[in-house]
């Protein structure tokens, strides 16, 4: 389901956006350092600070992700559903390694710390060209 064209947007060049909503209808939106390709129908999002996001996901597993293509030409819009949190294993280890690199490049070594890899099922993914043709 996730096209190969979308994978460069998951290499950590730019922050991504994660939107959630609690059960009373209040939306919440936050930046995330990593959206990691897991398989053709799942991505993992780095869990670092977002307590409100975690609380919202307990109420309502539906979320939206925006990815930014490193070329600056496209966004990718994803509708996703939270599946589980992982704190060990291959995906977690790979994300932790990449996050250390991102933190080093952005001077955030003392701030960015991976607390979990949140696995989401991708329900829909859409390329959003930034310039309307």
């Amino acid at each position: 389901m996730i096209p190969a064209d979308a994978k460069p947007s998951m290499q950590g060049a730019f922050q991504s956006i994660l939107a959630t909503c609690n059960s009373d209808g209040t939306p919440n939106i936050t930046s995330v350092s990593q959206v990691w390709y897991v398989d053709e129908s799942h991505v993992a999002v780095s869990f670092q600070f977002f307590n409100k996001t975690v609380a919202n996901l307990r109420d309502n597993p539906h979320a939206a992700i925006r990815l930014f293509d490193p070329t600056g030409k496209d966004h990718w819009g994803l509708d996703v559903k939270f599946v589980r949190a992982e704190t060990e294993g291959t995906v977690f280890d790979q994300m932790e390694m990449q996050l250390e690199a991102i933190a080093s490049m952005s001077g955030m070594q003392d701030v960015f710390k991976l607390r979990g890899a949140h696995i989401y099922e991708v329900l829909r993914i859409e390329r959003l060209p930034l310039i309307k043709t």
Partner: protein
Amino acid sequence: MPAINEDVIAFLRSRPIAMLCTRDRENHPDAHESFIAEVTTDRVICLVPEHLAGRLPQNALDNGDAALLISRSPGDHRSVQLKGKITDLEQARFRAEFAPAVEPLLPMFTAYMPHGAARAMLDRMTRQPVFRVQLDVTQVFDQTPGPQAGRPIAGGAE
């Protein structure tokens, strides 16, 4: 007490690209790239490109619940989240009147992204149909990465 203090207003005016979040009646969220055109102590006017608006028109009409994220990234990652209600949505049209305000931002954007991408970012705000969104702000949160992320600046507990 105003929801948006002077410090946050200055930050919003220095960082006009933002992400707007709305939700549908099933509480499914959606995110929309937006450009901050005007800021007052309790209100933000955003422009959202029509072709990136997704479910914005329906969501605004259905409930109006919204959150707006402004982040200085790349940079020091300072981030602020505003929450409130969309109280007005003008239909999408070309808004050339905003061009004089947008064009001077090109050097700021080229400082952290390729020139072509920065140019495209400005063009899509002035040369494509955009919705004008009025967000009445009731809550403001510090969203800067770190242990203080989620700290309320105004309007209630996170």
